[in-house]
């Protein structure tokens, strides 16, 4: 009995439910039949390129866009007909969107003033917020007298001061430079941990998504094409699109020869056991550059191939030194381009034009049977 109760207590509670959500503009489906459960207290990121539907979905959550069809439930209650000012949701916008005619203090106090909170309580809460975002000394300044990072902190304080259960953030750090962005990402993560608030974050920056979120929903053409932790999505992408969208990837075209074997350019390779593969079926193999190794012919001769590993021959195209890591572009005998990445410390003493043996563990390579050609060249982070 107690075991059951404990189990229920540990089960993450669903706070927000999107059910078959659609948003059409004429014939164009900006959001195409999305269903998603957002857990209470989680940090979820909508990641996608512009026009992928992530911002439209956020906008429907906020109430600025009305779904063409579908349901948005918060704690089981429909939000669709609730106007945005009654949703009790906090939001931080890309361009800060502070009230330019009000001081920092009055900006943060605005939601409380609208709610007609007593002055004493209002001041107390605003003071607490100013402290939380470390802007106590700037309380009487105008937004235009603050730096971009400070302005965004005011926006966050303004969104949190009325203690909403959900905080929406629409590319809030997009306008800041890299260093400041990383600082604020750290602050945001700490803030989330301290307050336990549910955050839905929109970005097109995959590194930011990885840094911040517990789960990432990858958007493409109005659909969620991948949902999971950054780790899972990166290590085991559910499809070729996610594989090519997140990080870098090598794609090899194979012909299946059973459930665990396939040919690549006429050579037999072992692949992950995949149910339902037909002999001769076109199959796609995805290997992360850092999961592959490039060995010179002498190294390969000295280190016999371990079981569970594959090896193909290739010729070195270009070796790039990138500081902490090194990449090596190679071309297989059949003309497939691959990239191998290694930490600089590990060393990769290869030269252009040399023969190499590229190796990888069968378990590290993902197998796909369905993909679109356009999925294979999503440059990392590009949009």
């Amino acid at each position: 009995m107690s075991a059951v109760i404990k189990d229920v207590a540990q089960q993450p509670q669903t706070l927000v439910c999107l059910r078959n959500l659609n948003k059409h503009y004429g014939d164009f489906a900006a959001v195409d039949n999305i269903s998603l459960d957002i857990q209470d207290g989680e940090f979820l990121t909508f990641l996608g390129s512009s026009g992928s539907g992530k911002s439209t979905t956020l906008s429907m959550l906020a109430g600025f866009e009305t779904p063409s069809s579908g349901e948005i439930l918060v704690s089981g209650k429909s939000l669709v007909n609730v106007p945005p000012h009654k949703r009790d949701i906090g939001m931080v916008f890309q361009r800060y969107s502070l009230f330019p005619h009000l001081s920092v203090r009055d900006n943060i106090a605005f939601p409380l003033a609208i709610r007609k909170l007593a002055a004493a309580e209002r001041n107390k809460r605003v003071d607490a917020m100013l402290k939380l975002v470390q802007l106590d000394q700037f309380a009487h300044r105008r937004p235009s007298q603050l730096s971009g990072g400070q302005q965004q902190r005011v926006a966050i304080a303004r969104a949190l001061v009325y203690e909403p259960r959900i905080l929406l953030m629409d590319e809030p750090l997009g306008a800041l430079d890299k260093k400041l962005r990383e600082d604020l990402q750290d602050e945001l993560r700490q803030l989330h941990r301290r307050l336990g608030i549910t955050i839905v974050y929109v970005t097109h920056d995959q590194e930011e998504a990885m840094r911040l979120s517990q789960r990432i929903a990858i958007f493409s053409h109005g659909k969620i094409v991948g949902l999971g932790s950054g780790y899972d999505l990166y290590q085991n992408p559910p499809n070729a699109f996610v594989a090519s969208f997140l990080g870098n990837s090598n794609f090899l075209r194979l012909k299946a020869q059973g459930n665990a074997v396939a040919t690549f350019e006429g050579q037999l390779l072992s692949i992950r056991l995949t149910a339902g593969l037909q002999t001769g079926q076109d199959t796609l193999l995805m290997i992360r550059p850092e999961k592959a190794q490039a060995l010179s012919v002498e190294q390969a001769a000295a280190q016999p191939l371990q079981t569970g590993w594959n090896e193909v021959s290739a010729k070195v195209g270009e070796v790039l030194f990138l500081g902490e890591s090194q990449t090596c572009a190679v071309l297989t005998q059949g003309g497939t381009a691959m990239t191998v990445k290694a930490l600089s410390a590990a060393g990769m003493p290869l030269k252009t034009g040399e023969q190499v043996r590229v190796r990888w563990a069968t378990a590290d390579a993902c197998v796909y049977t369905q993909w679109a050609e356009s999925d294979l060249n999503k440059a990392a982070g590009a949009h």
Partner: protein
Amino acid sequence: MLLTPNAMSPRLRWGLYSVTGLIALFLLLPIVFIVLLSFGSSQWLVFPPPGWTLKWYQQFFNNPEWMAAAFASLKVAVLTTIFAVALGLPTAFALVRGRFPGRDMLYGIFTLPMIVPLVIIAVAVYALFLKLGYTGTLFSFVVSHVIVALPFTIISIINSLKLFDQSIEDAAVICGASRIQAVFKVTFPGIRPGMVAGALFAFLVSWDEVVLSVMMASPNLQTLPVKMWTTLRQDLTPVIAVASTLLIALSVLVMFIAATLRRRNEARMPS
């Protein structure tokens, strides 16, 4: 090569300076001329004035007809300003935020009074009010002035509304303000420069409007420009120069206020 004053040869630079100076002089001279004449002692508006006096000002302020005209002008201009802003504000919102067919055409219609010759509008409005029996009333003055002032008000509010980031208003809404509250508490303060400029434009348009006013005027209600016009046709008294000077003075004052407000606003919002 950039044509900045520093990059130019001195000869070209001084050439440009003198041309600019001449143009400024050309534009300012009539004003300087009339202001000087208003203080001149000559009955016949002789230039240069043989001596200096304030007696024309005395005559102006002691003449009930001139004072009535000045007061009427002020009243019409203030009412025109109020109505132009009250009508221009929602119109500008509809034209900027609205998504409906014919929006651009509507914009064209609203700005038409800037292009259509004033005299045509004057005749049309006059014919209408003649039929309705409203000529010579305050109402007819204000309505006709609002017609020509509205495009200026609408355009200046539209410009500032387009510059105003609507996500600031959305932020107020998500903070708990209803759309109307957000507009009043956040958007209006945000577009205040445009509203103030629009109001000042409306005031100025009405303040020195003469074509429509001549049509609308009656013996017991006429604005300052109309009074000047009718007086001019009877005799050439320096009191007209006084009226002109006061007309110009108020206009300059209004423009000065507008410039000050704009500068203060730019200082507040650098981006």
